[in-house]
């Protein structure tokens, strides 16, 4: 499995043509206490760059965009009851949604872990 990252602080774990999407440890640390997350329903069609989910800290609401296009397999229902999972385990149990890739070429423009770390260090 390969993990990619975006400049919008999302991680994308690729397993064949299915991918899992969440926000990075850096993103959660900067957003602060997460109090609400809204994830897409199974079957929803997402287009790369379009609205996919919402994450809300005490202070503000933020959109999570679809990093790649595809059809949602499932949203992480655990976030409804325990949105703080995004803080405690952002790159694991705090995932947002899984989808089936519609165009694997879209992965080419994403960063690997080293490139993302360099991107964060430059902020």
């Amino acid at each position: 499995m390969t993990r990619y990252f975006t400049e919008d602080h999302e991680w994308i774990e690729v397993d064949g043509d299915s991918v899992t999407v969440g926000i990075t440890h850096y993103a959660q640390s900067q957003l602060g206490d997460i109090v609400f997350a809204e994830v897409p329903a199974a079957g929803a069609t997402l287009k790369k760059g379009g609205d996919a989910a919402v994450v809300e800290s005490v202070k503000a609401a933020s959109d999570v965009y679809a990093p790649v296009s595809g059809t949602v397999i499932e949203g992480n229902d655990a976030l409804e009851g325990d949105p703080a999972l995004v803080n405690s385990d952002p790159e694991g149990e705090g995932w947002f949604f899984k989808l089936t890739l519609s165009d694997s070429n879209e992965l080419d423009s994403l960063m690997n872990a080293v490139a993302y770390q360099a991107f964060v260090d430059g902020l």
Partner: protein
Amino acid sequence: MRQPASVAATLERTDMSEEDEFDLEPIEILELPLDAWHRDKGARMVEFAGYQMPIQYEGIMAEHIWTRDNAGLFDVSHMGQLMLTGDGVAEALEAMVPGDISALKEGKMRYSLLLAEDGGVLDDMMITAVPMGLYVVVNGAVKWDDMGYLRENLPDEITINNMEDRALLALQGPKAAEALKRVVPGVDALYFMEAGSFFWGPKTDPEPLWISRSGYTGEDGFEISVPAAHAPRLADQLCAQPEVRPIGLGARDSLRLEAGLPLYGHDMNPDVDPVEGNVAFAISKRRRAEGGFAGAERILNALAKGPARKLVGLSVDGKMPVREGAPIFAGEAQVGIITSGGFAPSLGAPIAMGYVDAAHNAAGTALEAEVRGKRVSVTVANLPFVPHHYHRKGAKA
């Protein structure tokens, strides 16, 4: 309504306000006396009211709860500390504020409002009678406008001194008094809305501090005016007390929202009068009878007939926060708008305040707010959401 920004855009925001993305950039973002002190304590700094301010240290939720249970130290040095002096200063100021300022005894303070000609609220403020005249604390974001308006409308013999060489600290929470009296002996003699001068430091070289028992969190607490040069030393001494931790603007906002206290520029603005703004308590009895303040006709009329709309509290069903700008509906008809909203750490639920039309603003009225195209059930609630714990004179301990 403002749509959520992307995660990256949210992280890049350096200002505190959700509203001002189209505002002109201030010429220069200024530093306050405790700037280095905050950074040293690990604060995340943001731009607020033209200054670099700490939005959080360890996290908004933890800081909020700490303040409700212990004592939190807030830097509010961005606020304007004005000294108004001159013969007849109280009577002169009463032309622009609806409180009974001439009756204010030395060492007593009251919450008041700066009123425009048409009765709109230009700012809210704390006015204290002091030996020299009146000590007035105004909001940082509008302090320059306030000073201009006051200068224009006060007689020439009244002097306005903007005390920029002083910092302002707030120590808030149920353990604020026991912590502060160790650093500044005698300060616990003050009751809520009283103020006085207290000596701090070595007996050989004491520094006078101006301290009031007041604040904006709903908790007991104090506000301390200190010469800027001494502010870091005082902040260090306060944070050395086991009850005290530094608290950022983020928790200040969630604390005041739970306490049902309006935030100027969000819950009040020049379009609303004090009755609509649910701060009619600031209009003193004598002033109601006599009038004689800016906008008196509109305001007294609203008092007599009831306002067409009013700022109310709203409890929110579910877990999704309802934020500033969200429209409020009764069925198909829009009957209001949210002006402050967020997550209440002490309640573990979202809460909000907003303006709602008279026919729909009684406590208990079921309404809906719209968030990202979806309707959320909200209910008009009595304020405050979390009870106040002020140290009032005559109240049971």
